[in-house]
């Protein structure tokens, strides 16, 4: 067998490899998760963004100096009735953006519970960013910047106030996440779509246990 080496770029590895990461957006409904994604990926903004019923999927690449980070973005449904389905999407994610609406104190509270859930249930080294969206509506502000920042610091989250409408900090927050993600060798191991199918092996074990008792 003569194939010893791996694929090589004839031009040299100047641009570095592409690392793929799964990123999930969480937060109360109508805080602007889909709008943030739409702004980031397509540079668009719709005043009346349809409510997400399911989990939307888009990809976007961010070029850093040494590496290229490709995000597989899962934008989840915010409505409470779909809460129990969220783990399907944050499971195996390397990054999460928890979004709240700065004009609505309740959504900030909800964001905190999402952070807690992620800390408890998601991958232990998940990079979490907190986004206070709708920053363009600061005259209706209900959540103080300092309050959110303090909370983010305590929980070592990235934090920015964003506006999908004006594009403020939208690219920046994704960029900040891209920078914070560990790039060592995880490019390959990370880029994994959620495997929504049956986990056959696990299932077998479960049923085995069931019948013997």
């Amino acid at each position, binding site marked *: 067998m003569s194939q010893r*080496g791996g694929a*090589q770029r004839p031009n040299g590895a100047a641009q570095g490899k592409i690392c793929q990461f799964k990123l999930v957006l969480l937060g109360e409904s109508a805080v602007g998760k889909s709008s943030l994604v739409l702004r980031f990926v397509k540079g668009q903004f719709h005043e009346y963004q349809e409510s997400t019923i399911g989990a939307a999927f888009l990809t976007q690449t961010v070029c850093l100096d040494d590496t290229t980070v490709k995000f597989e973005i899962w934008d989840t449904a915010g409505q409470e009735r779909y809460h129990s389905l969220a783990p399907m999407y944050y499971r195996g994610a390397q990054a999460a953006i928890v979004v709240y609406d700065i004009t609505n104190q309740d959504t900030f509270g909800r964001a905190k519970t999402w952070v807690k859930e992620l800390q408890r249930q998601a991958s232990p080294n998940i990079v979490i960013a907190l986004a206070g969206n709708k920053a363009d509506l600061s005259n209706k502000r209900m959540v103080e910047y300092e309050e959110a920042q303090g909370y983010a610091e305590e929980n070592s989250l990235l934090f920015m106030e964003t506006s999908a409408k004006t594009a403020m900090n939208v690219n920046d927050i994704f960029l900040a996440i891209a920078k914070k993600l560990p790039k060592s060798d995880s490019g*390959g191991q990370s*880029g994994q779509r959620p495997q929504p*199918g049956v986990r056959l*092996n696990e299932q077998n074990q479960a049923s085995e246990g069931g019948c013997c008792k």
Partner: protein
Amino acid sequence: MVTACKTTFRLQWKCHKHQVLNFLRNLHCHSVEGENVIDKAKKYICLIERQGDHALFIYSSFKSPCKTEADLFLQDVLPIDGELRVVTEPPRDKAFGTGSILLAFQVKENKHLYEMSESNVADSCQKKIKEAIDLQTQNAGFGLPSSFSWLDKYRNEIKGNIARESKVVDNSNPFSTDVFDPLRYMNIDKSVQLVTDEVKMGFEDDFSQMNVQNNDTNFQTNMKKSSSKDSLDFLDGRETEFTESLDKMAAKELGLKPGTNMAAGLKPLTARETLVECLLKKRQSEYVNLETFRVFVGTWNVNGQNSTTLEEWLSCDKDPPDIYAVGFQELDTSNQAYIFTDSAREPEWQDAVHKSLHPKARYQKVKSIRLVGVMLLVYIKETHVQHCKLIDTDSVPTGIMGMLGNKGGVGVRFSLHDTTLCFINSHLAAHQEEFERRNQDTQDIESRMKFKQFLPPLTVHDHDLVFWLGDLNYRIDLDINEVKENVLKGALGKLLPHDQLYRQLHTHPVYKTYTEGEINFVPTYRYDPGTDNFDSSEKKRNPAWCDRILYKGVGIRQIVYRSHPTLRISDHKPVSAIFDAGIKVVETKRYKKVYEDIMKKLDRLENDFLPQVTLAQKEFQFKDIKFGEPREQILAIANIGQVPVTYEFINKLEEDSYCKEWLSVEPYTCVVFPGDSIEISLEVNVDKTIAYRFNCGHEKIEDILVLHLQDGKDFFISFLLLSQERPGSLDNVDVLAEGVRLYACPKELFRLVDHIWQYGRHQEDLFRQPGLKTDIHQIRDCLDTGIPEMLPGSIHSVAEALVLFLEALAEPVVPYNMYETCLECCNNYFMCKQAMSKVPDCHRNVFKYLCNFLRELLGEGKRNNLEIRYLAQMFGDVFLRQPPMSRLSSGKLGNARRHLARSDDMKKSAFLYHFLAHPYDE
């Protein structure tokens, strides 16, 4: 004949050394023998790779659609060896649908035919299989036979499967064995489990094979014994890195993740990397500047002499070159040179070269390679080292038998900035008349030179700039005296047309792309060593320009081409050429811009080609759900995107089915083409297994289904089931608890019992004959509404309605919490009565009422043929129901569990028997 039911499922194979390269899903594969379809079961074909050997694993499924791995069993294993042939053909038989192809594997005389629908998946699978076969042939050609001993255990597994299969088939009466014999399922489960276990663990058992491979590699190194490579440490380090990452790279290449290998729908990142690379190259001009690099190329046949100082050859110019490529031939003519890898001459000459490089610059060695006497050294100015990458070498022996290294070529390639360079040093066949042999040698070297650190390996042609140097051994086809005369006269131009290489350069295909500068130096061969005199020995060899330097590529300008006659130790004179070569240097800023632009475009492309559908409806309400009446609604999916969409309902976490048992979805997965739409039927059927949930005080049942688009987004489809809200409805409240407030027993129960007593107590085969479905629906409506006064339908229907009513109670007649107690004491009437005394009044009243009723029916036994055992068994099962989620409630019955169930059934009937045999007094 062929049912077109499609199925998808995802297998997650946890295997280490077995790489599942491709898995045929969604295929209808049928074994075909001769003209007859002999086995129509759906097949799954899996291409497995292990240590370079490939095999096809053919699985059969018990169920259609096949949803779990447990339904699969291994039916056949076909090693991809010299005997396997793959033929694809269109179906000959109308039995196969159109748009399908037949895939035939032929092993000796046996032909295995599989039909599959024509699809991209099928195409790519076929391609993969063919690749595997090609690889096998190639390996066999190199004398690397595959043993496939690792397949043995699977073959044994199959034998087991077939034995079990045939056992089942032997039984002529299909009913003589229970179709759902749990034993059978258990066995099969186990076998599949075993297979996967072995896949999981089987990575240590092939040492024998590994040894064989090691021997092979030893053999190969023996063949090339007399060659060596070496380079600077920092470059070596890089090389090992290449090899280490082989596995990872290969896995990546296939889109596989280390550890868990099979991931359906995963887009390999390498695909994008390759694409990016390709696009970058296309737009190279947008971000590179051409910078001139000076290249010194030298060649010398040293005739086995000891080294000497080489400044006159290597550093006779004013300015230091950026790159040195120095080639030697006949470095070591001793016999030992053929046998031993090391040659004392190598370091000696390398040292001489190193010391004689231009003093005005510092150099680092890029790489050196030697094949017996042919050695090539490449140096680069220290300032360029960081831009010099992806260094690789190869050597091609062309000597005796095309194997020995006494003649042949060595090559060094590397990338400098964004330009790829390749240097070849060759020593071609000798003797005046052998010019065709020399052409052949060159051709061999060019075609066999492979830089194997690349996948696929790079060839000489793949480089921007190529420099070909060496003792090419071409002669001048003129009389020796004529040659010498012209040399003396300085009339080199008259000789040149007679030079063999000069002629080949314009005619022979192998040289067509190469250029040579004008020769202005006297022939460099053959001299009396130590002099500038042509060969004066007896052989009187014709003077010739043996030592030459050719080049090809855009942007090369030759500055000089000369010989160095003052170096006299050999019978050849050294030759050198200086070139100005245009090297593409990347301007980082512009490069980044182009790179980002490409990424942006690819992102847009990728997002545009994501599957996109619209759903007509995402919420489904089923109002007025009635017991036992299936209801259907339609979910329409329209593909509004640009690519075919495969949708699939997927399981939620921790759930083992994509929907609840009361819902059936058809088809649950399918491909929808752009512009097309498809209707999915959603059928709700509330039967007795779940009716109790409505009765448990819930007025509605909700569920959310996850509709997944392969490689795309998910939709949530909500279901809401509402029952009739009229009070007293069959499936609304705990009837027993409710009813007792009004009557001694619920009024529905009273009406049913009363009706049977009045009109049916003499009915023959009471409780033995089934009722009519339509009757039962009418009876149910009548109970709910009270209209008409008399229950409709036949007496058998009313009897069945009574049983159904009791079965649908949220809490059975004997409450769940008493279930175990009652079974335990079933052998003792006294204790049974004691147990019943603990039952809440309302339940006990009903129990008593029904027992009395049944006992009275038994009193009429002569006419209605009822007997106590039958009633005890039948109603025992109705009165005593195992609590949900108990040890027996899960769907699949194992052998042990089935046994348990049987003994429970006996206990139930024993329990009730007491109360039917004796009047129940407290």
